[in-house]
Structure formats: C-alpha cells, structure tokens
C-alpha cells in the first residue's frame, strides 16, 4: 500500500502537478544531446530555461527547442541574470510570450531570480519581494529563488509566491544544504496551517546525497542544474539524482529517528553469554 501511494507521489505547485519532485536545469551541458539524455535519465517532467537574445548573426546556431520535446516537459522559464525588479519583470513577460508561442503549459509561471551580486549570485531580498508582488499582480505563478532566511521566505509567501525556493548553498557551488536548521525553520513558517505549500531547495546541490538530505528535511522538491551538467558523467548523475529524490522523500515520509549522543544496542542484552564491561 505505501509503495502504491509513493508511486503516485506527485508535486503540486499552484495549478501545476508534476510527476517528479526533481526539477532540472538545461544549462551548461557540453552538448544538447547530452542534455537530452540527462533530462530523460533524471526522470523529471519539469525543466528550467533561460531567456536570451536570439543569435541573429550565427545562422548555424542550434535552438534549444530543437532538442527538447516540449510535449513531454513543462518548461519553467527563469529570470536568471536579472539584477533588479524591473529587469526581472521584463524577462518574465518575454518568457511567457515565448511559451505561449510554443503552447507549453509553463507559460503561466516563472522562476524568479533577482540577484544582488555577481560573485555570490545571492538574491537581493528587497528587489525579489518587489518583483514577486508585481509578477503575482500580473497573473504569474511565481516560484521564487531566495536565500535560506526564514523571515524573507515568509515575506515572499505573503507577497503571493506559489512556491518559495531557498538555496541550499550558492548557485553552482555544489556545497549541498549548508544550514539544514534554516531550511527546517523555513518549512515550519511556510507550512504552518498550510502543509501542502510547496517548498523547493533551489541551488547548491553537489551530489545525490545532497538531494536526499534536502528531501529528508521535508522539502517538497529540489531544483538543480550544475550538479548534473558538470558531473564527470552527467547522464549517470542524473539517474543518481532521481534515486536521491526518491530515497530522501521516502525517508522523510518514513520518519527518521532523532539523533542521539550515545549508542543504543540493536541486539538484546538479555541472554548474552558474554561478559560485559562495567
């Protein structure tokens, strides 16, 4: 019975229901073919994309869309590269226009990134809250990248975000979830009286163990890109990530034991024929 329930363990964000709890980025692969294989191996049905100038000069340039089956994936356009709210709103609207053109269901949502600084790629919390409010008012379902600050997370939910997505560690850093306690507090705040509110760890993952650890905290999903695209074997890592998501989710649902300082024996003391130290 539990296995059956888990097979149908889907992730609902706003009006979108995803079969997988893993969202995978399409950037930084060495080839489009490798990207396509990695996405397939990850088991995801939702992939992020960025908005950039059409390469008008390079007639040979391949288009990402030639390598993505848009009937298979819900696209999640991002506002990566935006350093103020005005630009983030502009780029979100352009992304929506493109997705309407290709008739992808992702046209009504956006992954909002409103960054403060190129070295850390940390979000600007004030601009991020501003952009969230404006995009929500414009009808977007906003999935918002933020730091692991629980207070900002709460503000973003109040601003109308469909999902708050705290970073585990800086984008592309591969450091995993550096402050699980903050993620726990984010979960408490965001899910208080609203247990189905989706919280996604976005950024910082290095390997499948990081994904599992994040999921075990009780987050609803993980969004990653570099950890797969820059792995020595991206396709194999994508498959590992799929297992990491499932392992972490089941571990959370199963209810892990609390951490204790001292040991507790697994085998009974009673009936032992050996001498015990005092």
């Amino acid at each position, binding site marked *: 019975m539990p296995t059956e329930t888990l097979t149908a363990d889907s992730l609902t964000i706003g009006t979108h229901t995803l079969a997988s709890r893993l969202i995978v*980025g*399409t*950037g*930084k*692969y060495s080839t489009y073919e490798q*990207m396509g294989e990695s996405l397939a191996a990850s088991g995801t049905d939702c992939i*992020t*994309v*960025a*908005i*950039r*100038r*059409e390469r*008008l000069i390079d007639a040979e340039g391949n*288009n*990402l*869309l030639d390598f993505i089956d848009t009937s298979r994936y819900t*696209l999640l*356009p*991002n506002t*990566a590269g935006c350093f103020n709210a005005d630009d983030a709103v*502009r780029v979100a*609207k*352009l*992304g929506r*226009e*493109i997705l*309407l*053109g*290709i008739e992808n269901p992702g046209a009504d949502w956006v992954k909002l990134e409103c960054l403060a600084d190129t070295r850390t790629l940390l979000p600007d919390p004030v601009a991020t809250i501003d952009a969230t409010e404006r995009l929500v008012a414009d009808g977007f379902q906003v999935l918002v990248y933020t730091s692991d600050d629980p207070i900002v997370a709460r503000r973003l939910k109040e601003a109308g975000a469909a999902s708050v997505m705290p970073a585990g560690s800086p*984008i*592309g850093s591969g450091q995993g979830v550096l402050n699980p306690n903050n993620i726990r507090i984010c979960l408490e705040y965001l899910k208080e009286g609203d247990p189905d509110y989706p919280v996604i760890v976005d*950024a910082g993952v290095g390997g499948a163990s990081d994904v599992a650890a994040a999921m075990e905290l009780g987050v609803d999903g993980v*969004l*990653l*890109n*570099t950890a797969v695209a820059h792995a020595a074997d991206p396709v194999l890592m994508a498959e590992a990530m799929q297992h990491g998501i499932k392992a972490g989710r089941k571990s959370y649902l199963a209810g892990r034991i609390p951490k204790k300082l001292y040991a507790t024996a697994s085998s009974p003391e009673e009936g032992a024929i050996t001498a015990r130290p005092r």
Partner: protein
Amino acid sequence: MAGRSGLLSCVGSKKDERAGMQIQLNGRSKEVATGATVADLLVELELDSRTLAVERNLELAPRTEHAATQLAEGDRIEIVTLVGGG
C-alpha cells in the same frame, strides 16, 4: 522622424528613400525600411515568431500585434528566445 532622414543619408545609406530608419536590434545598429513593422523585421531575419519574443523600447510587443506594430527611428528592439539555463 522625418527630420532625421537627412542624417541617415550621411551615414551612408546607398538605398532609395524607402531605406530610411536606424534601429537598435539586440544591441547593434540596423537599418530598416521606413514604415516596416515588427512582422516585416522577423520575415527579413527569417525568424519563426512562435519561438521568440520581441521587446520594443522595454515593452513587450505581443505576437498578435507584430503585424500592426510599426518600427520607429531609434527604436530599441530585443528579439529573445529560450536557451539552456538553471
């Protein structure tokens, strides 16, 4: 607009008087025919409007209005599409 056509001819336009306007397209200067629309521009560039979005002077130019949106001298046009990203 009309007042600047003299300036444009100095820039070295070799065409007839139809070739008249200078716009900024994706950050580079481009000459377009006077009266050209966004739709005309996309046809000239051989681009499929379904897979891109056009912004004119920081405002989205919706696909449904491409044919009716006339370009003007000095317009800043951005044509964007999807690329890989996280």
